[in-house]
């Protein structure tokens, strides 16, 4: 016994080696139950959690592609929404051999340049004449109104931001249907102003403001923002402070809206201006 102990102590390292290697081989041979028992119990799923974060990091590198796909898919879905197609009169069905008439086309675009800290802010998009972009097209973000195209080149276009002193848009209160005019006073990039709301209009804080569709720029019912604070009375109208639904500082992917009937509408309206 004594001699055995002496032997073990003298060859401690070799014994330790055998023991550890033995444990490794036992782990190896019982690997079926191993995952459920030892790994889970000893490490409490730490390894699983780190492996999970590793996968998160890997998927993060794919986000650019995923974003593009989602933007494309959204554009497709928007086009399928009820509001963008109009049922044509029966007489035209025969002529055109079509049931639904396309009113708006949504084109995805990425913001490649953006300003929010000036008085006349603009942003640049990576779509231009080659994608069928022309001046006067509306630009909306997934959250709501964003701007209007004011200049185009072959592959890029510049849009006047909502945050531009020259920007004016006909809007209405979604709940009560009163319409007014929206503009940006040039102070805070999160807030715009709506004027020309009549005194008797019932306005409460949190009311939703959407585009009216009265101007040919934006389609109807595009989200603009929500009323914040009490209305200010001045002259014959109320002035509302509206928190913009689109955070213009975080604009990344937007849709450019092509209105297929804009020419016809504007032409008709121009012809009656002098009446």
């Amino acid at each position, binding site marked *: 016994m004594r001699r055995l102990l002496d032997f073990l102590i003298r060859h*401690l*390292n070799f014994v*330790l*080696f055998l023991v*550890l*290697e033995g*444990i*490794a*081989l*036992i*782990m*190896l*041979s*019982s*690997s079926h139950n*191993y*995952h459920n028992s*030892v*790994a889970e119990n000893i*490490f409490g799923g*730490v*390894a699983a959690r*780190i*492996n999970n974060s*590793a996968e998160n*990091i*890997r998927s993060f590198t794919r986000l650019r592609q995923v974003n593009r796909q989602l933007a494309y898919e959204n554009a497709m879905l928007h086009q399928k929404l009820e509001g963008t197609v109009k049922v044509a009169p029966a007489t035209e069905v025969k002529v055109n051999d079509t049931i639904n008439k396309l009113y708006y086309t949504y084109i995805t675009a990425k913001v490649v340049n953006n300003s929010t800290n000036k008085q006349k802010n603009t942003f640049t998009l990576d779509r231009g004449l080659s994608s069928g972009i022309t001046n006067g097209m509306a630009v909306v973000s997934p959250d709501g109104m964003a701007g209007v195209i004011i200049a185009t080149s072959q592959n890029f276009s510049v849009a006047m931001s909502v945050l531009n002193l020259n920007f004016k848009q006909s809007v209405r209160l979604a709940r009560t249907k009163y319409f007014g005019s929206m503009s940006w006073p040039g102070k805070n990039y999160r807030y715009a102003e709506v004027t020309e709301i009549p005194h008797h209009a019932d306005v409460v804080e949190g009311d939703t403001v959407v585009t009216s569709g009265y101007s040919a720029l934006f389609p109807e019912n595009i989200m603009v923002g929500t009323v914040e604070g009490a209305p200010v009375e001045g002259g014959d109208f109320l002035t509302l402070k509206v928190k913009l639904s689109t955070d213009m500082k975080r604009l990344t992917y937007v849709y450019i809206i092509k209105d297929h009937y804009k020419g016809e509408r504007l032409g008709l309206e121009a012809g009656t201006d002098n009446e």
Partner: protein
Amino acid sequence: MSKTIKYITLFAGLMLLQILLFNNIQFSGYINPYVYVMFIIMLPLGMPEWLVLLLSFLTGFTVDMFCGTPGVHTAATVMAGFARPYILSLNITSEAISPSSTPSIKNNGIRWFIVFTFSIVIIHHLTLFYVEVFRFAGFFRTLLRALLSTVFTTFFIVIMELFRSRR
């Protein structure tokens, strides 16, 4: 004490590098670098054998946790840790080696470092690849994988040591 922290950092860094980077790189079916072996290589030259063995076991066990290969890496690292003192005693060059120092290109010269690294890595990889397939069918294919991977692992470890000693 600061040395302990240095080794904990090295351990964590190598694990992350192995799990997040090298385990995801598909060089080819033949080349799988396992750079975490660097931890066993970098242990102090005069460290007691039993401690080297225990740390080797811990290293392999951790990698096994993440790779879902119970016992495979542990067997290989314990083998490498066991062989380390023998390689050190065979591998003495004309340069004097102080037992408290850690192996480095600066202290021991690049030739010594490459030979030492290669010796540890080849023992680790031969054990690893044969334990992994756990059979001697396709003996030469496994041998080729082990040898090619050894070359690449050694290469990456020497590169990392070059960067480390430059700082």
